[in-house]
């Protein structure tokens, strides 16, 4: 970084650099240490972002993030997080996301965006086409020769007939092109952390059926649970890697809410993931790794042999979270806010009791209409409840009402209804209409000062 600011660029000769900076301190490149550092980075990325991480020496990492982005709330968020953390650690990173490894490789190295680049699925041909031939991972000699022949961009190469060029420059060129476009497979060997609990099964005959895979998963979980038992730990996360006959890896990852080494439970979580594994021509080796473990003591049974166990909710929470995503499963707890829609805070499912409850005096609707919908109201100003209102085209006559409950808006907030408008007061009325239905209406504004609101009415929910 410092070197760049002094005008020194990569692959500049030392003599030239010395003329720019006379007191330059020159160190030999330590390739072995660089490779080690890269591997460390790979293991870190494997723990944090994706089960499948391969090292692309000397300066690249492959992450297979398919199916991993839910944890972060989308691919973009995942990549942003990765970019922020890597740059924060003092390294300079270029990140590209694409359908194929070749495309991501090319874009990351040849698009100087300065931020993560995401290629829309299916657009790799367009993206790669605009790049120079050197982006194809071909020998520099071939790239420069082709450049001399007038091929400045890859799209020109795609447009030419293959035969003559392949005869002259070898099939390697087209293999790389096909890999980038997704027509040819790419073999990558994932990096496995050596010290973590793991189980491996090499198979005599390649397998491809779901039943066979499930059987092997059962064996692997037994093995890994024995290893976890020896270490006195439980797994919080498990990665299953399947090596196929063609050298490709298929990986799936599951997460657990609490550390576990119950083989039956782990098998139950892994088996539904089989449908995400494409066995191709067959799977040769299956490896199960626990990248995140936590200490777990043995459960003690009391003398009567009765373990007094409550319902096995950990397993249920894991099953639901792995099926629908962890953010689709939550508890709720009170949160102090003046505005009713913000008094509910999401928490982890089954968090242990803080025993906080909502104010038992204030009426709150069972069904909330969020955001509130405008209604047309006939009401006497300023203090009277509505006499009737029209909502979604239906007129409702109010029989009885209670209110107002005055809520002062949170003017200090940056988001929400208050920020969009400067109006600060909501007067809530609980009204019962003919037939018995109860609704929650509010008027924006206190009925006296127009600065508190435009006196418009909204419906915000329905009571029991």
């Amino acid at each position, binding site marked *: 970084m410092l070197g760049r600011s002094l005008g020194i660029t990569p692959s500049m000769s030392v003599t030239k650099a010395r003329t720019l900076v006379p007191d330059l301190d020159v160190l030999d490149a330590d390739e072995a240490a660089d490779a080690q550092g890269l591997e460390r980075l790979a293991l870190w990325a494997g723990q944090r972002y994706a089960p499948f991480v391969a090292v692309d020496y000397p300066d690249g990492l492959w992450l297979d993030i398919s199916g991993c982005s839910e944890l972060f709330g989308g691919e973009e968020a995942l990549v942003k997080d990765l970019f922020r953390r890597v740059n924060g650690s003092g390294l300079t990173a270029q990140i590209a996301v694409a359908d194929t490894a070749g495309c991501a490789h090319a874009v990351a190295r040849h698009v100087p965006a300065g931020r993560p680049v995401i290629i829309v699925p299916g657009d790799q041909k367009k993206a790669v086409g605009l790049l120079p031939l050197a982006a194809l991972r071909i020998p520099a000699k071939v790239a420069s020769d082709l450049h001399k022949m007038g091929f400045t961009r890859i799209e020109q190469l795609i447009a030419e007939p293959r035969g003559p060029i392949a005869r002259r420059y070898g099939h390697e060129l087209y293999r790389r092109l096909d890999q980038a476009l997704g027509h040819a497979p790419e073999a990558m060997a994932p990096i496995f952390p050596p010290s973590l609990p793991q189980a491996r099964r090499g198979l005599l005959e390649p397998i491809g059926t779901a039943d066979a895979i499930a059987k092997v998963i059962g064996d692997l979980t037994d093995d890994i649970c024995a290893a976890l038992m020896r270490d006195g730990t439980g797994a919080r996360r498990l990665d299953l890697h399947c090596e196929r006959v063609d050298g490709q890896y298929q990986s799936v990852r599951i997460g657990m809410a609490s550390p576990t080494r119950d083989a039956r439970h782990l098998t139950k979580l892994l088996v539904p993931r089989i449908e995400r594994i494409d066995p191709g021509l067959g799977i040769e080796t299956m490896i199960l790794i626990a990248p995140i473990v936590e200490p777990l003591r043995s459960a003690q049974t009391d003398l009567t042999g009765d373990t007094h166990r409550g319902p096995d909710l950990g397993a249920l929470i894991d099953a639901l979270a792995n099926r629908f995503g962890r953010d689709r499963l939550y508890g709720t707890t009170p949160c102090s806010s003046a505005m009713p829609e913000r008094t*509910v805070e999401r928490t982890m499912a089954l968090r242990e009791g803080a025993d906080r409850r909502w104010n038992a005096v204030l009426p709150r609707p069972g069904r909330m209409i969020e955001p509130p919908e405008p209604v047309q109201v006939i009401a006497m100003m300023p203090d009277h409840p509505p006499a009737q209102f029209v909502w979604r085209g239906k007129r409702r006559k109010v029989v*009885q009402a209670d209110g107002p409950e005055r809520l002062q808006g949170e003017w200090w907030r940056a988001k929400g209804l208050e920020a969009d408008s400067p109006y600060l007061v909501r007067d809530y009325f609980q009204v019962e209409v003919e037939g018995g239905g109860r609704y929650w209406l509010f008027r924006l504004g206190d009925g006296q000062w127009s600065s508190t609101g435009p006196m418009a009415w909204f419906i915000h929910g329905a009571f*029991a």
Partner: protein
Amino acid sequence: MPRNAILEDLRSSIAHVTGDGCRHGVHPFGLDDIDDHLPGNGLATGALHEVLGSLDICDDAAATIFIAGILARMEGPVFWCLRWRDLFTPALDLAGLHPDRLTIVEPGDDKGALIAMEDCLRVAGIAGVVGEVSKLSTTASKRLQLAAEGSGVTAFILRRAAKADALLEGSAAQTRWRVTASPSENLGIPALARPRWSVALERVRGAEPKSWIVEACDAQGRLALPAILVDRPDQQEAWRIAV
């Protein structure tokens, strides 16, 4: 063998075959009027129950709180599988369902909600599982009923936005309730009395359909009968006719 004993014996074997025998016991409403009418004198636990609102959101809210009130009086965790995102949990707390007991699952669609319900129903020790769906096929209801019988967990299907003809399809549920809002008492002052619901038992195995007007759940999830029906028997008939 005396004749009564033979009849008892036959009844119990029939109940065993049809599964009407409330194998997991019952959960009383605490209202004699309703409990006496239900087979086993209460709502069967370890079974599937359907609760309907109407197309009006306030009836859906009534059905929601009706279920919350039943679960509030049971013990153990509750799982609530949502398809719509308008459930406001403070209202469940007001009906006595403590927020620490409640876990929300958002599977996104009917199919996911049914899968999530079935997963939950297989874990014994949970108080109840609620699923909000619009469609429920006969097969799906059978699966849920079997899962509930197996674990003893009580299941509620809250059917929302259901078309009238969708309800004609058979269901393996033990009961079907329709809960709708009903006019509350006029206190004579500008304030609201305790809300009232019309609770209709539309279908039940082993008993006749019937409907009641009840006062909505209190803070412990208990229903009540309108005072006029309890305290002034002479006015009951007149009131019933008026309603």
